């Protein structure tokens, strides 16, 4: 153990004397803090959007209730068209709608994930899903293309670079300076000494990011308390991912080549693992399993509603023929027509969305088969899952929307189909959106995916460093 500590102590002393090390660590520190600040701003905007939407919805419902009260009292003398009538279950259900929302999780500030392309708020109506499921939050598309600096980015892209910059020439530089022989000779157990040196170099950036993250979360997440287990999972992900890069650097260094070789090889590996592999997997998945055509869904909905419209026209015409004396109730006809076209579209769209989900599932399954090729992608997945801005959370949100859509439709259609008018009691008992699906964070798979290559690299590094010679 004494060799290990000796190596560790001396390496720390050397490191702290190098200005470039200080510069790297300060950069990492500032970026980590900035990313969390950025995250806090982002989450604040998301929370503001949610509360504004809730305020907007209750204002709208209150307006409807007031109009209804005035109608019931007989204060309104004009004939309201069906689409403005608060008693009309067909139009209130399809035009009004209720917001389904996804609240930011305690660690949402850690990763943007899918939160910038998936809206966290959708207005669910009785109409088919194509009319509300695909609405988007406003954002400059060039901003979405560039991305943002979040902690996930700092961990996945920047941290490995800092680790590699500190660890790439641990042995090779000593060999080049001619001090390796002396260093190895000085220790009782040379391997322990080398480990001590490696740990010293690796610990500096890892501790920096973990401590800064803890401080940053403490400062910036004032409105909500991060959950301890989530923080520990984040810490575990950082540690594992960092270990992968440290061990990889040691393995390459252990090959006994010069520093330039180490630097270029590690840079190449970094480019392949963090940039090219995720992009390649993405391109391949899109090529083999093309994304579904959402346009088809819209067209099917339009075709179904036109057919239903025509059918209703024929029914009304026939009724007129058979009852020439009856006065046409245009308001009722408009409601029945809307109901018929909406329901026809609903059936079509539900079927198509199921098909699309299946297509996307195939694509995701394919990505899952390949993502173990990139520990960067796996770690990104893990962090995004912890932040609650990943695939699992959005899938859960879509499931919640699905059940709420059914509830909302049942409520209004039960009244619309019997022609019953909506009452104040109905307005007071409108279905409310609740988030039911809350799967616990499961990042075992991505972490295992990082752990396995790390172990391989450990073996190679161990063999290489054991043979380490001046």
């Amino acid at each position, binding site marked *: 153990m004494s060799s290990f500590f000796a190596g560790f102590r001396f390496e720390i002393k050397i490191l702290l004397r190098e200005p470039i090390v200080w510069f790297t660590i300060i950069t990492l520190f500032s970026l980590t803090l900035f990313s969390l600040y950025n995250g806090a701003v982002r989450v604040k905007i998301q929370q503001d959007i949610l509360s504004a939407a809730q305020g907007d919805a209750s204002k709208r419902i209150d307006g409807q209730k007031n109009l209804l009260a005035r109608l019931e009292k007989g204060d309104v003398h004009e004939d309201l068209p069906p689409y403005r009538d608060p008693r009309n279950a067909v139009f209130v259900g399809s035009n009004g709608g209720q917001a389904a929302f996804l609240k930011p999780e305690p660690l949402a500030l850690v990763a943007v994930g899918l939160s910038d392309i998936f809206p966290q708020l959708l207005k669910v109506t009785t109409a088919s899903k194509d009319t509300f499921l695909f609405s988007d939050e406003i954002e400059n598309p060039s901003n979405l293309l560039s991305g943002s600096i979040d902690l996930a980015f700092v961990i996945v892209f920047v941290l490995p670079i800092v680790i590699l910059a500190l660890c790439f020439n641990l042995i090779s530089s000593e060999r080049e300076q001619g001090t390796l022989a002396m260093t190895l000779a000085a220790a009782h157990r040379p391997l322990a000494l080398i480990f001590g040196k490696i740990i010293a170099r690796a610990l500096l950036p890892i501790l920096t990011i973990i401590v800064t993250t803890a401080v940053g979360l403490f400062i910036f997440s004032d409105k909500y308390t991060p959950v301890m287990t989530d923080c520990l999972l984040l810490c575990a992900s950082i540690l594992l991912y960092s270990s992968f890069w440290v061990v990889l650097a040691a393995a390459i260094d252990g090959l006994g080549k010069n520093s330039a070789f180490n630097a270029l090889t590690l840079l190449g590996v970094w480019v392949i693992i963090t940039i090219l592999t995720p992009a390649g997997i993405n391109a391949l998945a899109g090529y083999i399993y093309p994304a579904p055509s959402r346009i088809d869904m819209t067209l099917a909905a339009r075709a179904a509603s036109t057919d239903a419209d025509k059918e209703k026209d024929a029914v009304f015409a026939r009724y007129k023929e058979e009852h020439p004396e009856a006065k046409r109730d245009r308001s009722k006809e408009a409601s029945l027509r809307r109901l018929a076209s909406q329901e026809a579209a609903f059936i079509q769209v539900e079927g198509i969305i199921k098909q699309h989900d299946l297509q996307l599932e195939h694509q995701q399954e394919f990505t899952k088969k390949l993502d173990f090729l990139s520990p960067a992608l796996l770690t*990104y997945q893990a962090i995004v899952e912890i932040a609650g801005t990943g695939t699992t959370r959005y899938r859960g949100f879509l499931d919640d929307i699905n059940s709420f859509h059914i509830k909302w439709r049942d409520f209004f259609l039960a009244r619309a189909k019997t022609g019953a008018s909506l009452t104040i009691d109905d307005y007071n008992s409108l279905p409310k959106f609740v988030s039911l699906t809350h799967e616990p964070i499961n990042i075992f798979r991505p972490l295992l995916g990082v752990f396995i290559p790390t172990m391989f690299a450990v073996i190679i590094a161990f063999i290489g460093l054991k043979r380490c010679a001046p």
Partner: protein
Amino acid sequence: MSQLVLNSNLIKSNSARRSNILSAIITKELREMYRDRRLVALSLFIVILSLAAILFGFTENSRLARERVAAAKADQLLWTGQGAKNPHAAAHFGQYAFKPVSPLSFIDPGVNPYVGTSVWLEAHKQNETQFRSARDKGLAGRLGGLSAAYILQTIAPLLILLVSFMSFTGERENGTLRQLLSLGVKPAELLIGKALSFNILILVLIFPLVAFSAIAIASFNNTINFSLSDQLVRLIIMALGYCLYLTGFAFLGLGFSAISKNSRAALISLLAFWLINSFLAPRLITDIARSYAPTPTALEFRSAIAQDKAKTFGHDETHPAFVLFRNEILKKYNVARIEDLPVNFRGLQLHRDDEAGYQIFDKHFSALQESFNRQDWLRTAPGFLFPILAITPFSMAFAGTDSLAQYDFTLTAEAHRRNIQNEVSDNIINFAHNDSYVSGPELWKRIASFSYRSPSIYFALDHSLEAIFMLLSWVAVTIIFALLSVRNLRPI
């Protein structure tokens, strides 16, 4: 260097001497590059990867183009097959406008995954475009897509820096720099010779991509929405832009190599710059741009429109604006009752309401685009220092995949929507004599389906002046830096 020594004996005139030196330097550099197996492998890797990306992009484009053409046809059938109905009800049913796939998006998809592909043209409302494909790409898509543009913007500079970082330090470390300078070769000549040889490498990288892309464009065969010659010129300008972008890296590498103590220091500085340029700068400046020119949230945007729309009467006949309008019309036609009007009042009402709506939508949608433009302007501004900020908007603009190209599409689609609204309202004004008035397929057929002609290259040029200026400044800055760096070149 033996060639140089021989050549120096044959010098006749000054310019001949200079060209001899340059050609000797270029030949030597190219030979060295060719002999470096790792370099050849990396260049080949970049070219093959880019070609594969182009192929993927081209296949995807062709599929999307087929899908959208079929969708446009299907929507046209739905529109004309509506049967007899009130023209305003038909306007509510509306049409769909599908954005044609820009041929050059197989090189640079730009913002395409983050913008909608179709827009519903319905009565009373200018809708936003729908279906951002990024939503269906999942998490892996957020780490970047594989496109030729992305490879040229991030990976190709790395190659150029790896080739150039040892230019002077390497010669110094091998002891050849002292020999060269003692032969009377000026540092600036050495710089130019090396820069020219790196430019040959850049051309070797870019040429196969241009040739392959030109064939792909020719076979894309969409002359309805795009002009083939326009696309080819765009391709050539894009290629020139990438040459400029990479040339700047060559000079940067040379400059750092000249001022650095050793190759290691040059490599570290250049790699740090490469990392900041490729990954940090775009994100950092985006975060700054977002707070510099904030955009409204969707709810704020829609509420602001709704607020303005509430000042117009729509279908609300109790609205004060409606009463004013009715009085105005009665006065204009000099009648006392609506029933006495020679034209249909409801048609006039729709027409007036639409006109008011157009102004409201123009105001809000153009203000939104303005805030996007301000953010984009700020993002491009540091392009002379971090050239990825200049090449990205430049490349997108010429590929027809930037936010302005999208805006042009939405404007054309909106113009078409207004055409539909005006036609149906005119029809009601002139022909509807009662509430049960219906129109038939002859009217639906008379209203043309949406057609879109992509703006010409001048549109892209006009909107990328800042990016072009920044790209040229980047090259100028790096040339000046390299020239200054070699002035005090230390031979040992």
